[in-house]
């Protein structure tokens, strides 16, 4: 049964996640530490911090979740688990899709809990916190898809790994623009959320196909 296999896949991902939970905590610690550094660098002016808060939190969320991209496929690829799962009857496209979902649940959702705490440091008004959380739920899914593409692209890249993070940052620019735009009183909230959801749907379509193509290419040239 396919459902059974998918359930087992998630079980394995959860076990791996709990064995590496210190990694996640250090990512969140990176997030908070860089917020502190930003505040020290800008000075403790409350009005200034309130104005720039959402932008800083968004960009630091982006940076700290790119830290964990390296682990996306590399371990499974190096010990050939990805090939064994494929032999079990799951296509590479479905593997990629399940990987994206598990990355979304196990890496991005824990950041959600830390967002309200981070907003307290900047004294953000409550409607901005709502906007931030809503846009982060959509944006982090896009981030998982992009991370899948860049990590699968980098499977055979031995020399220059940071280029994968660069590509994620580059293609995340429109998402940041639309997310910060929800705060702006002039712009239409619903249309921006629809745009974000549209981008998420596009990446949901593109990323399993392209990541699977990259993984197949890498397995052939391993």
């Amino acid at each position, binding site marked *: 049964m396919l459902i059974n296999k998918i359930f087992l896949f998630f079980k394995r991902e959860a076990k791996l996640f709990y064995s590496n939970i210190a990694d996640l905590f250090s990512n969140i610690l990176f997030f908070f530490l860089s917020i502190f550094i930003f505040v020290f660098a800008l000075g403790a002016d409350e009005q200034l911090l309130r104005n720039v808060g959402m932008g800083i939190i968004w960009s630091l969320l982006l940076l700290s979740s790119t830290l964990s991209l390296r682990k996306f496929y590399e371990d499974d690829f190096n010990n050939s688990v990805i090939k064994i799962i494929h032999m079990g009857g799951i296509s590479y496209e479905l593997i990629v899709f399940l990987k994206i979902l598990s990355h979304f649940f196990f890496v991005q959702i824990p950041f959600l809990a830390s967002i309200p705490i981070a907003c307290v440091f900047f004294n953000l008004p409550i409607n901005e916190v709502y906007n931030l959380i809503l846009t982060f739920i959509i944006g982090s899914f896009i981030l998982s898809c992009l991370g899948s593409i860049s990590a699968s692209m980098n499977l*055979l*890249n031995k*020399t*220059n790994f940071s*280029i994968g993070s*660069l*590509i994620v940052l580059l*293609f995340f620019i429109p998402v940041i623009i639309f997310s910060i735009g929800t705060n702006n009183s002039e712009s239409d909230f619903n249309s921006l959320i629809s745009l974000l959801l549209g981008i998420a749907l596009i990446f949901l379509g593109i990323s399993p196909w392209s990541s699977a193509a990259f993984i197949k290419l*890498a397995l052939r*040239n391993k």
Partner: protein
Amino acid sequence: MFNFLINPYKFNKFVDIIFKPLVILTLLVLIAGLFLVYFSPLDYQQGLTVKIMYIHVPSAWLALLTYAIMTIYSIIGLAFKIPFSFIINKAIAPIGAVFTILCLFSGSMWGKPMWGTWWVWDARLTSVAILFIVYLLIIFLNHAFENREVREKTIAIFILIGSINLPIIKFSVDWWNTLHQPASISKLASPSIDISMLQPLLVMTVAFSLVGLIIAILRIKAEILMRKNYL
């Protein structure tokens, strides 16, 4: 007839015939263009700084044209599995990067006296800066992978995804309210630029594209030779 565009052997033969006349033609056009720029009239508002336009506009056009050529060759290379297109992708990416940085640099030199600032975060400037970053990433990707097949296909897919930026650059001055002025030349019926300034601009554009073409030919020939030795 146009086989030389996809066949390295025919490309080499064709280029060997036209290369020397092309160099002479480029020199003539470049000298003529520089003379025309020297004798072109000053702007009644901008004075001498208007002559930055004769470098800024051609390099901007060629930055976009180079990326468009790379996009077309990526589609051809991925769809019809023609390896020559990957050679071209690798050879002309640095040329496009140089034209983009030339455009950004001259624009910033022009912006300081006219707008009073080196840089503003307006849509046209930002999207061209992103184009420069995309060019740099393409060049870095060329050095990143050891396996040739992976490298070429990755770069081609990356070029295709990055080509979303081209229409954004083109229409940014129409979609958003920017400090950068809208296009003056694109309206073919009646360009909103005077003929005495249009002539040197067009000649300089031809000269820039010929210079770019000569460098591209040399780089593509070198790339073909390198692959012959390695394969």
